[in-house]
């Protein structure tokens, strides 16, 4: 199995609900707490497994706002695991989930240096590294109804921009989406082989704006009159 997420950059509205749901589930989960520093102060900060950033792609007038949620990519070549001196970071052979054993971590930050995606954050309160678990304490929970055995971020997404599944299964929803929508990976040139895949914005029919008003004498006079009346 190769579990991971597909994130649709076309439908993501950048609402941060996935990050909040993640924080809510995981702060009371097996890797909690996700410590907050100065939560009611002027510069509140803290540990998050999922962060959403917002970008402008293209130049005006052909530009677009794209929201990119990012959490652990559960890379196939996870350097964060290789560089860990204590063996606290490990990648599960059965499903590819990268986890941190907090009882072994010495908080040296080296894995965070090795991660290109900024997926790992040190909890300064606990002194150990924390990261996305792909809700490992949820997706296998037999107590939950089957439809809820998904990461918290996927269940909560109101735009349905997040999908969870097995990338090794060619017929899974995530594999199908990647195939049909041309899924892309972030920074593939570094060779980490991230599992999480992003779906690019759909190419939509351009809506013409230059032919709405023909440049004729009547419209010019109308424009002039409107301007004068407004003044």
């Amino acid at each position, binding site marked *: 199995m190769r579990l991971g997420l597909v994130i649709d950059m076309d439908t993501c509205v950048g609402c941060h609900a996935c990050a909040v749901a993640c924080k809510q589930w995981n702060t009371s989960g097996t890797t909690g707490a996700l410590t907050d520093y100065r939560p009611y102060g002027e510069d509140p900060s803290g540990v998050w497994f999922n962060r959403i950033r917002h970008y402008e792609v293209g130049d005006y007038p052909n530009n677009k706002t794209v929201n990119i949620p990012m959490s652990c990519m559960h890379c196939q070549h996870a350097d964060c695991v290789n560089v860990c001196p*204590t063996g606290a970071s490990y990648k599960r052979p059965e499903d590819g989930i990268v986890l941190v054993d907090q009882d072994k971590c010495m908080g040296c930050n080296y894995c965070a240096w090795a991660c290109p995606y900024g997926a790992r954050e040190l909890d300064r309160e606990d002194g150990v590294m924390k990261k996305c678990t792909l809700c490992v304490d949820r997706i296998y929970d037999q107590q939950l109804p089957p439809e809820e055995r998904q990461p918290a971020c996927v269940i909560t997404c109101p735009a349905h921009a997040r999908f969870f599944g097995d990338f090794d299964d060619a017929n899974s929803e995530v594999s199908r989406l990647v195939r049909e929508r041309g899924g892309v990976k*972030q920074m593939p040139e570094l060779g980490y082989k991230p599992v999480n895949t992003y779906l690019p914005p759909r190419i939509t029919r351009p809506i013409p704006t230059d032919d709405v008003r023909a440049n004729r004498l009547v419209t010019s006079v109308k424009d002039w009159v409107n301007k004068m009346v407004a003044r």
Partner: protein
Amino acid sequence: MHPAFSVILFTVISGAGYGLFILLAAFHLAGIGPAMSHGELLVHGGVAMGMITLGLLLSTGHLANKKNAWRSFMRFKTSWLSREAVFAVLFYPFAGIYALGVLLQGPAVGPLAAVAGVLAALLAVITLFSTGMIYGCLKTIRQWNTALTPANYIMLGIATGTTLFAAIASVFGNATSMHAGVAMVALVAAALLKGIYYFWISRVNGPTINTATTFNRATVRLLDTGHTAGTFLTDEFGYDPRKDTIDNIKMGVFLLGFIAPVLVFASILSGAPEAVAWLAAISSLIGIGMERWLFFAEAKHVVRLYHGAPNCTSPLTQPASDGPEVPETAGAGEKGPGWRLGDTPGGSGS
């Protein structure tokens, strides 16, 4: 990269200690230079071991969970940090046998102590190499991901070791032109390697904001990082020293780290009292301390691309002349060290 003071002290002090030990073993066991007295051998070895130990203890200073530090020996198979820890500890028994041989047998050590001394010197070089590889193996930091990184660590350790070696020898009236000559050669070689490194990182390339965000056929600009205050990532990777600070420190590296010590040894060769070698030792240690600060401060992690840096060398904040002046609105300023959300022209602080 945020320069961690404990790591700077550790790498500089331990590096010089390993360098001093390598010089001691080379001069003593290979018979280079003048014969050393019993006392001189012990002081050289004692200072080297003391500096190495002090550095290793200081290195635990940046650990957030020190009680698990012993576990750092566990992943020798994959982690250079683990390898460094193992080699650093493996150095001690061999250095100890050599030291015991000197202590009991005097300058004319037996074959066992001599072999142990050679092996300890070899382990010292391997430890320096491992320290360099901790940084050199990271594909995420293009400035470090080069064979020059471990080469620099080895040569800078040996160069600072040679200055210390000459300085300690001067106490025993034993700092010969051989000491000065070896120091000058090592310093010039280290300066050349460091110069090549600075040249190389000034034109390094790698991932861009385009490959990071997957949009390779359009310009990409950061609108908002999604957080109002600093995060772990901004604290650790958002360090952006000013260009003139970098230039001044770099000047200090070459002046104090290499040029001044070489001039001091040149003066010894032309008849100055040998005790001035201490000036060279102190100057080179300060200079290499500045070099180590710069090594971290100039390293730019690729996660910065997600925070608005267009490529692997650019600072996060664009020069003010790039766009119209954005008036400082309440709360849109200070977003942690070196990170401003309002740095894109017209960008808002959410």
